[in-house]
């Protein structure tokens, strides 16, 4: 953290386990995230579950910590909720660990925790355990949050990246690239005067309504890092199939498209934080699509392609000219380019 404001800052002592730690937990974390399990303040959260469990963990680092449409708090909650949802699970319980840089403004911490809490409420999950560590100035870039989560998978649901079959329809839940551009547009030198919002959102509800509509949803993935290009390539490889996507059917916001033109970025490689890709048996595709469009986070859902038989796992784009080109696994980071 380079800036310090008038308000109070996090001290190393806040992470020492002493009175300041207790104070911080009480005044910031418990106040915002309170629930019957967390409030017990035992060393472990005790929950009762029965059935197929989905269990996942994700670390969240983002610069800037606050971006249009979200912040690291909301991001770290939705990221883990979405990983659970992509297994077809109903997300239930979350643990969160905060690594905070000494000198971090207390106000900002409160904003981040409260945003995490709001997202938890929206996602219908409880934050049942947590941890806070403070590291010396310079040892972290403001704050890192790691969240893990548990969810319950209904008995008849079998969703996997290796389950895509030839003939399946490929559906995306809405516009692509919003989060990536929202983050990039806040970096130094971009100076867009238009605000592009991140799509950061919990997708458990959307997945539940898709599964209500059909049990022939075979694969779900949220195209985060590496974007749609990475996700489709992962699924093609895991399922041993080819995926063909019609380029003109992929939905983009016009500002995102414009930013990509200006900066020379490929929107298919940009991160999304509130979108999913679904592979659904052809005969149920319209049913699932209908259910998605009923949902706020799936209103822009469209079919973008289909799965094909193939000896080699491949992802193809059908271009405007009607020709097929390979959409390969992205290499390296996406940066503004001049050529």
């Amino acid at each position, binding site marked *: 953290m380079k800036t310090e404001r008038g308000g109070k800052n996090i001290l190393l002592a806040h992470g020492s386990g002493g009175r300041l730690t207790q104070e911080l937990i009480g005044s910031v974390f418990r106040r915002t995230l309170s629930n019957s399990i967390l409030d017990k303040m035992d060393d472990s959260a005790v929950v009762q579950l029965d059935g197929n469990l989905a269990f996942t963990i994700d670390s969240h680092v983002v610069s800037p910590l606050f971006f249009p449409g979200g912040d690291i708090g909301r991001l770290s909650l939705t990221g883990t909720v979405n990983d659970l949802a992509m297994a077809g699970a109903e997300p239930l319980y979350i643990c969160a660990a905060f690594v905070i840089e000494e000198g971090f403004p207390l106000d900002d911490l409160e904003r981040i925790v409260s945003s995490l809490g709001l997202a938890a409420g929206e996602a219908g999950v409880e934050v049942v355990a947590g941890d806070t560590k403070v590291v010396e100035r310079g040892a972290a870039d403001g704050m890192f949050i790691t969240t893990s989560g548990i969810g319950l998978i209904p008995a008849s649901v079998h969703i996997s990246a290796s389950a895509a079959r030839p003939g399946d329809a490929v559906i995306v839940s809405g516009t692509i690239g919003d989060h990536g551009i929202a983050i990039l547009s806040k970096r130094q030198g*971009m*100076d*867009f*005067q*238009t605000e*592009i919002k991140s799509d950061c959102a919990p997708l458990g509800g959307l997945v539940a309504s898709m599964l209500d509509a059909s049990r022939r949803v075979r694969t779900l993935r949220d195209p985060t890092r590496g974007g749609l290009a990475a996700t489709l390539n992962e699924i093609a490889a895991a399922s041993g199939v080819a995926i063909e996507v019609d380029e003109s059917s992929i939905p983009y916001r*016009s*500002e995102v*498209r*414009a*930013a990509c*033109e*200006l900066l*020379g970025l490929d929107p298919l490689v940009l991160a999304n934080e509130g979108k999913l890709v679904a592979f659904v048996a052809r005969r149920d595709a319209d049913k699932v699509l209908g259910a998605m469009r009923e949902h706020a986070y799936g209103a822009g859902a469209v079919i973008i392609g289909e799965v094909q038989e193939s000896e080699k796992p491949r992802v193809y784009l059908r271009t405007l000219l009607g020709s097929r080109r390979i959409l390969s696994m992205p290499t390296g980071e996406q940066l503004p*380019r*001049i*050529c």
Partner: protein
Amino acid sequence: MCLAVPAKITEMENQIATVQVGGLSRQASTVLLPDAAVGDYVLIHAGFAISLIDEEQALETIRLFDEMTGGMASGGGGA
């Protein structure tokens, strides 16, 4: 080489233009294109306006395409 994108100048002050591309706006320098004015379409490269887009020429090109396709395609922009 050289990515350049058509953008419309919406404001201008001291050779710094506000330009718009597809609902997105940012600033660009017009030092290399001193005659550019508000309302003009220009090509933006690396934060600079480098060339004025000639509307008549653009329409002429579109008209040629239209002729070739038997006038069946408006091409999205008739004006």
